[in-house]
């Protein structure tokens, strides 16, 4: 851990590089950070909100889904980027030493920039739907911490597995898609039958995303019980990922 601190500048440079490269030579530049969740929200609103009449607990469906899509898009992007990060940077791993953990970690943190950009749109939508700004908004940066922990934990496991088994690369997008449907982004937790609620709570994103929503939308209470389970699972996933990564990283240069 001491070493990671020594290499913190390299970590910042890597985050900066990832962010910079993502929007270089693209037509729309950083607006992609907005376009992706925003258009997903529109599609969801049309198909799930209007056509399928998905309940949204009395909140306008666009803002119901967008407030969940923001953390979700960050999480999905972070998994995808960090899961492939070691393989993409294999030339670094075989040529120079630095704490390997900086690579998947930088991939996760670079997504926070996109998150911040897309967050401004949420503020705009709140003005449009005349939702009062509350102190709850200040909870968002805090809620990001467990979200980042989950992304780091799962990202470290996936990236390390990917070094050994290249078909992990193909399962990541598929897994993310499945995970989306297991998470209350499109639907509220309230439509899950009571007896399955406990299972749903084991998915750390359930409690986190519900809390992201509850802190800014009126008339929603934070489900403390669910949130605590999510926090516990988040920390556990992070620790598991960290331990697994530390155990496997010695062999990265030999087998990548």
């Amino acid at each position, binding site marked *: 851990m001491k070493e990671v601190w020594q290499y913190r500048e390299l970590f910042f440079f890597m985050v900066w590089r990832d962010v910079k490269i993502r929007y270089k030579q693209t037509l729309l530049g950083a607006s992609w950070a907005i376009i992706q969740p925003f258009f997903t929200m529109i599609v969801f609103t049309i198909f799930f909100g209007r056509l399928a009449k998905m309940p949204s607990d009395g909140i306008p469906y666009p803002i119901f889904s967008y407030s969940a899509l923001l953390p979700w898009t960050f999480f999905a992007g972070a998994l995808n980027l960090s899961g492939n990060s070691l393989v993409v940077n294999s030339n670094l791993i075989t040529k120079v030493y630095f704490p390997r953990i900086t690579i998947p970690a930088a991939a996760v943190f670079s997504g926070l920039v996109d998150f911040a950009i897309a967050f401004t749109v949420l503020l705009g939508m709140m003005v449009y739907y005349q939702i009062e700004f509350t102190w709850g908004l200040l909870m968002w940066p805090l809620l990001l911490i467990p979200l980042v922990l989950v992304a780091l934990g799962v990202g470290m496991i996936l990236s390390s597995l990917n070094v050994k088994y290249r078909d*992990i690369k193909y399962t990541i997008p598929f897994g993310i898609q499945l995970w989306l449907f297991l998470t209350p982004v499109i639907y509220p937790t309230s439509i899950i039958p009571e007896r399955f609620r406990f299972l749903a709570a084991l998915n750390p994103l359930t409690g986190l995303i519900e809390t992201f929503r509850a802190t800014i939308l009126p008339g929603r209470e934070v489900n403390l019980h669910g949130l605590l389970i999510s926090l516990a699972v988040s920390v556990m996933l992070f620790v598991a990922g960290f331990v697994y990564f530390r155990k496997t990283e010695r062999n990265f240069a030999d087998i990548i």
Partner: protein
Amino acid sequence: MEFSLKVDAISKQYRIGQLFRENMLRDAVVNFVKHPFVKKSKETIWALKDVSFEIKKGETLGIIGRNGAGKSTLLKVLSKITYPSSGSLKVHGRIASLLEVGTGFHLELTGRENIYMNGSILGMKKKEIDKRIDEIIEFSGIGNFIDTPVKRYSSGMRLRLGFAVAAHLIADILLIDEILAVGDAGFQKKCLNAMGGLSSGGRTVLFVSHNMAAVENLCQRVIWIDDGKVKKDGDSKEVIRSYLETFSNGDYSNFDLDKIENRSGNGAIRFSGMEFLDLKGNPKNIIQTGDSLIVRLHYYSENGVRNLHFALELYTVLGTKVTSLNTWASGFEIQKLPWGEGYIDVEIDSLNIVANRYYVSLWAASAGNLWYDKLDYCAMLDVEQSDFYNSGREMSSQHFGMVLFPCKWKLNGR
């Protein structure tokens, strides 16, 4: 704290199976289903075996050895890229490894941005790079293009930029791999100078190279690695000499080249032997400075090799090329080689080199730079002293350089 780096009985083992491992989870599952009780291959190779040495602070150490001898693995272990299977490594000071020029360069980033990226990957702090950035840009000679994305650079420019960062690295211990093998001669010299400067600044340098002249030039001490073990460790001249001696087979006038396995090329032509003859065609066992000499190269050719060139090159024991005699330079065209065995003679009028031991390399190549056969340091040529200037005086390599020109002296015009 006398030493910078202490290597204690380091070994590195690779499982052979790792080379043909299951790349895909799919394969691993399939294999397990097919042969659930078969254990994975336990066959292993030792890339390094029981390697120990110590580098003092401020010392410049060269590492030499054939391809696959374990030099690169050693460097990777020292730079902590890969872990040893056993043994320990002690380091005093900040270590930086240059296994490649421009590690971490990204094509979309500008030259300036890449300097920061590359520098920090190599372990420099941002402040340190800030301080040196002007020097680095100056050194690279990139000039106005420094704020252009690197993808628009020529490969030479990228290389220079990478070297520029490397030359300004701040570290107590530098590990350098074969990176001087690339780049144009002028720039190579600049880098060698910069690195010479590095070692004089109290820095410890470990240098892996095939360029014996560079190793000899930069390092006082050399370690020769063979088959994963330290074969010899000591004064650079001595170690390099015994290393180069292993390339020759010891005969003096007639060399059987057939059995030499250390060769490259596609084999359409294969050198089978070499003879040193006098002008009458008799074997020449003792060769002296100023002698006439015929070198006969025996070869075996496959059907219809066309437009090719032969060469005979001489090297000093330190790896400096003395000359390259080749049919291309002499304008001797060979349209087509008949199938089977044959020989080609090169007649040297006067061997104007100072008495010493030399090494011979041979090659045959197409006009389009395709190697047919290439033998490096395949034979030894011992040139004995002679009375070259008819003065009765002998000239040794210690004081008389490498070549002798036929010449006459006149004082005040007479």
